[in-house]
């Protein structure tokens, strides 16, 4: 745990303020680290993944004695020091050759970790094709029903989305969609052991061709990197911690508009409250017999008059009367 720093200058105070928790969070920075031993495949894999994540990526090229599944304190240190919450750690041991560990942090602590082995790898440099520009938002395509059913696949999908999503934007330039990251889940053996299935990670650049319509025809060209992953160890967050991490601030929740709904067809439906109708003021057909009179007035009237009314002489009221 680092000592809490008290800013001495206004500049450092501003820098510290930037690191404080925010309602609308900034992009997550990722750190790409090497373990105590790596090989060429892992090194290029790290630098290629870093190239996809740039500009919110920090690479450390020296070796680090880090074993995240055994001890995560050094990760906490790295996270706090660099204000980063994503890690990709590569190492290569006899027991777990060509190992990549994806780590996510919340509140300066490890939230979840997924370890994968790299079965096959091709670097970006192996593909002599046009690459996307730095900092472009990628498209994601996740293929396979395992990403909906298997817990580890779900988490891995979430982790990759979190890692490469880039800036949160309200709108996007349609001509700026340049590449797509495709992750495909290969089938597992009957037992459903996730380490038996392979996950294919591919990155393609998008070419939009004319289609004679407004929407273009999409053609892909592989730009790299390309990996075949196999799941190894995992460590997921406890439910209460995960719930705390996924809480949405009150300010960002969409405000509920009363009495306006959208029905299944997509129409906006409003409900109007009119209050209780005052029926005592209701205007009914006007007749002399229904007129309000005091008892004295009735007494004063002729019997003939009452008879006339009963015969219904004034059923149709005078049009000049107020209605």
């Amino acid at each position, binding site marked *: 745990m680092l000592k809490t720093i008290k800013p001495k200058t206004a500049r450092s105070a501003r820098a510290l303020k930037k690191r404080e*928790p925010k309602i609308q969070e900034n992009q997550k920075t990722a750190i790409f680290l090497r373990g105590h031993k790596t090989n060429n495949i892992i090194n290029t894999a790290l630098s290629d993944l870093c190239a996809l994540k740039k500009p919110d990526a920090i690479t450390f090229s020296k070796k680090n004695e880090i074993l995240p599944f055994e001890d995560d304190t050094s990760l906490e240190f790295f996270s706090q020091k660099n204000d980063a919450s994503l890690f990709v750690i590569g190492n290569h041991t006899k027991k777990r050759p060509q190992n990549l560990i994806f780590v996510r942090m919340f509140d300066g602590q490890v939230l979840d970790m997924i370890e994968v082995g790299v079965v096959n790898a091709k670097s970006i440099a192996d593909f002599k094709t046009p690459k996307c520009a730095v900092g472009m938002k990628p498209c994601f395509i996740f293929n396979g*029903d395992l990403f909906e059913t298997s817990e580890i696949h779900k988490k891995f999908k979430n982790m990759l989305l979190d890692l490469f999503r880039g800036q949160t*934007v309200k*709108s996007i330039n349609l001509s700026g969609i340049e590449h797509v990251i495709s992750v495909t889940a*290969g089938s597992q053996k009957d037992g459903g052991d996730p380490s038996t299935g392979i996950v294919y990670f591919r990155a393609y650049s998008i070419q939009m061709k004319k289609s*004679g319509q407004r929407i273009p025809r999409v053609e892909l060209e592989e730009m790299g990197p390309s990996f075949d992953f196999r799941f190894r160890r995992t460590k997921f967050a406890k439910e209460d911690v995960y719930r*705390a991490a996924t809480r949405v601030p009150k300010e960002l929740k969409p405000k509920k508009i009363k009495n306006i709904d959208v029905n299944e067809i997509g129409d906006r439906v409003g409900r109007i409250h009119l209050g209780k109708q005052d029926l005592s003021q209701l205007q009914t057909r006007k007749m002399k017999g229904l007129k309000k009179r005091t008892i004295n007035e009735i007494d004063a009237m002729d019997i003939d008059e009452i008879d006339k009314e009963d015969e219904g002489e004034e059923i149709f009221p005078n049009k000049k009367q107020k209605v």
Partner: protein
Amino acid sequence: MDVSAQLETQSSKYKPITVEKPISLEFDLGLLAGYDTNTLDDQKLKSKNIDEYLKEYTRDGAQLLINELFKLPVSVEDAGVFAQLPDVTTVLPREKPIPKAKPLTRWEKFAKVKGIQKRKKDKLIYDDEKGEWVPRWGYKGSNDDGANDWLIPVSNNDDPYEDLFAKRREGKKQRIEKNNSRHQRNLEEAATQQNKNTTTNPRIVATPNQRSVRKAELNKQVAISKLATASIGKFDKPLEGEPKMKGVKRKFEPTIADFKKEKESNLSILKRVVGQGSKSDGGILNAIANTKNNK
């Protein structure tokens, strides 16, 4: 010539933008993501042409995703056509916890109760004497309390031998000090408030930070440390501003007194040490014998 035939020739010039899938894709357009849950061809995944297969498969998905993106409402700007993205639907965890509301200072609490609103004040105010605009506070500010006056008139109520310049300076100093102490108090109270709200990080331990709590704790510890000497701290060097100990007195029994009482008190001590709740002397002795045997 028939229009439909024309349309056909037009469309046959280009490849199609439609894709047929048994299960339609789910989209999270805020993230530009498409989730395809259709079953993949296992044979092709295991074959050598897997890269080709994956590329074709992804192209179909990407085409559907692009179709959806191009259907979104757009706005035309200088840089190009911008599609308005909907909110992200996939739940992604945050990096840091939701910020807690800053604890109010004593003034803010008071102002809230009284309904006092903050007003924006101009930085410069007009000085009638000088005939120019001066800052409200700070360097050459209007609230300098007449620090540059070369003369202060002594009114009838003032002590004629008092240095009024020094008095002013002292007054300002004291006001600043008071403000600082209030600020400090606000900070301490805020810290206590925040420590009460436990964080998810167990390494940050909640500690009482409030001045009064700490003060009470310290006084308690000083009192305990006093008991360490036989004179209960009577001859210790007193600390600065140390409160006088209350209710702590030590009585000494006279050297020669009632033998029966002394015996009783000693036995009670023995009872307490050995325990067992024995009633007679014989019982205690038995207990002692037992403990000896046990050893």
